[in-house]
């Protein structure tokens, strides 16, 4: 359905982009149109990730592209990175998730908190996707409240012993390395847990009705010995994992617009060709209202992330800005996908069209990397000064 897809750009935001930003967007768009869209529904149904695309994505430079060249990065700016995420998610949220995790949740913490040896050892091979990473923060009983985590580390001679369990971990079953967050003497630390460490297991999560073209699993740690050299030395406390989440949430705020654009473009095309009562359904006011609402919200979302990206590049961004963009864009993207399904009528439920897949995916995306509700409360705290989600809060 995506032949001749030229993006959605009602406000000519293209004019605000540099030549290389547009080229990076276009190269990602062509890759997704030619390599992802023809195969993704099959993977979605089979619950498989298109692993053969990983080397191609690495060759194009999609992993850790904002990092310095000496670590295998491409030194692209955050707007270009965001545009890339939009295009990848137009293909599928699972594909964007893969790139988000590898770049924002694995390469970023190693780059930001790792030792020079850790950076040299891991970043170039992660950029080439010779190694695949995952990020272990969420636990069965600690989702929005990661500070309560049970996973812990004990210092022993030459390293640490880790125990605990992590859940909802994108890529864990196929990962060569996991960035695991665990409490050491009550303080959160990051550890690089490698495939093959005794007691480290990553069972796959089955039965997902969302993000089916993405591999999700658990991490279980039973007396896993992690050598001293694998502790991330540069950060202590929750700000470590939260710093990573900011990277990933930033990518999501851009990414979900891709799902929204694909569904809007599908709905527009369909409404112009579907005839009822002798005229295309696009001729009816109720359809037009839907299409206009979709386009209007996409445009607002684009302007928001464009500004967000420029602030990330000039260093004036705050985590609350990212929360607002993630919160808003996930919400509107999900509504747009559902609305597109309505425009397509019964056809909307078919796998011939991408709308149900996107809508189902976004149910996850709205919840992961900070739920819609948590982002509301983060912004609420920012503007009132009152943290509503802290149990120890007393006036």
């Amino acid at each position, binding site marked *: 359905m995506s032949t*001749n897809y*030229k993006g959605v750009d009602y406000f000519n935001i293209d004019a605000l982009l540099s*030549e*290389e930003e547009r*080229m*990076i967007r276009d*190269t990602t768009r*062509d*890759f997704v149109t030619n390599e992802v869209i023809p195969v993704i529904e099959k993977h979605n149904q089979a619950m498989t990730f298109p692993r053969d695309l990983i080397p191609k994505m690495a*060759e*194009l*430079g*999609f992993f850790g*592209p904002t990092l310095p060249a000496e670590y295998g990065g*491409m*030194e*692209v700016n955050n707007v270009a990175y965001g545009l890339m995420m939009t295009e990848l998610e137009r293909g599928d949220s699972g594909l964007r998730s893969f790139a988000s995790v590898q770049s924002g949740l694995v390469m970023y913490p190693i780059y930001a908190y790792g030792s020079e040896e850790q950076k040299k050892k891991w970043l170039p091979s992660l950029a080439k996707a010779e190694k695949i990473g995952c990020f272990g923060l969420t636990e069965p009983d600690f989702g929005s409240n990661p500070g309560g985590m049970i996973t812990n580390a004990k210092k022993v001679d030459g390293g640490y012993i880790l125990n605990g369990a992590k859940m909802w971990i994108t890529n864990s079953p196929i990962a060569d390395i996991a960035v695991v967050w665990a409490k050491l003497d009550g303080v959160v630390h990051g550890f690089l847990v490698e495939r093959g460490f005794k007691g480290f297991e990553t069972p796959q999560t089955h039965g997902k009705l969302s993000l089916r073209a993405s591999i999700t699993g658990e991490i279980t740690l039973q007396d896993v010995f992690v050598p001293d050299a694998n502790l991330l030395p540069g950060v202590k406390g929750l700000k470590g994992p939260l710093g990573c989440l900011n990277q990933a949430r930033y990518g999501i705020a851009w990414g979900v617009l891709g799902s929204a654009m694909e569904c809007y473009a599908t709905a527009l095309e369909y409404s112009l060709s579907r005839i009822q009562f002798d005229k295309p359904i696009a001729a009816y006011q109720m359809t037009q209202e839907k299409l206009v609402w979709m386009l209007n919200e996409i445009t607002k979302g684009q302007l928001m992330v464009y500004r967000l990206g420029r602030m990330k590049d000039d260093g004036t961004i705050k985590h609350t800005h990212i929360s607002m963009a993630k919160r808003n864009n996930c919400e509107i993207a999900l509504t747009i996908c559902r609305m597109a399904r309505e425009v397509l009528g019964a056809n909307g439920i078919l796998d011939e069209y991408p709308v149900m897949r996107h809508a189902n995916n976004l149910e996850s995306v709205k919840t992961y990397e900070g739920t819609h509700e948590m982002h509301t409360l983060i912004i609420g705290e920012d503007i009132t000064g009152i943290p509503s989600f802290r149990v120890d809060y007393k006036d």
Partner: protein
Amino acid sequence: MKIAVCVSQVPDTTTKVKIGPDGKTIDPAGVTYIINPYDEFAVEAALQLKEKNGGETVVISVGKESNKEAIKKAYAMGIEKGILVKTDAEMDSYTVARNLADVLKEMNADVVLFGKQSIDYDDMQVGNITAEMLGIPSISVVVSLSIEGNKVTCEREIEGGKEIVEATLPVALSAQRGLNNPRYPNLKGIMAAKSRAIEERQPTYTENKTEITGMKMPKSKPKGKIVGTDVSAVPELVKLLREEAKVI
């Protein structure tokens, strides 16, 4: 091996083109431009020749400032050097070819690559005229290419089949779809292209040999007809296909 590839910038295939108020040029408002799709096969062929034989690659374009985008795309794919013969004038095939030939004469390229045609004016002439001006053989509509030493062997598309053509270097070739799969510019290439300069030159010749006196839009397609929705409509459908559409 010295490899030159000539590219042009054309309206995006999805753009709805309108004729301007003068009745003989395209209204540029709202038109987005892309590198001519056939030229991408030529760029890819140039890169593959370089990867196999070593040497240097140069991209040349004749046209407006905006043609730099096509050159930048070629840079991002891996071409090393670019020349824009800059002009705002509308040039016909002869004049474009003459300007290309003037750049190419001093270059002594072993292989000069073109797309088989630009998808805007569809003249299919620039490659052949340029080759003639350079005094080198020209092979058009090439779908496969091999160069061993001095010997060039191409397969080219002909009506209902293929023919195999040989020549010796230097040679001009025009690329047809199927010659290769143009690579996506990767992020590394795009970032490297940013700092690579484009040499600008003045046109050496501006007199057109032909003049466009008018443009017309094609007639809009007649509306489709629904003969019926079940098997009872088949005889009528067959009749119409035979008598009206004359396709069976």
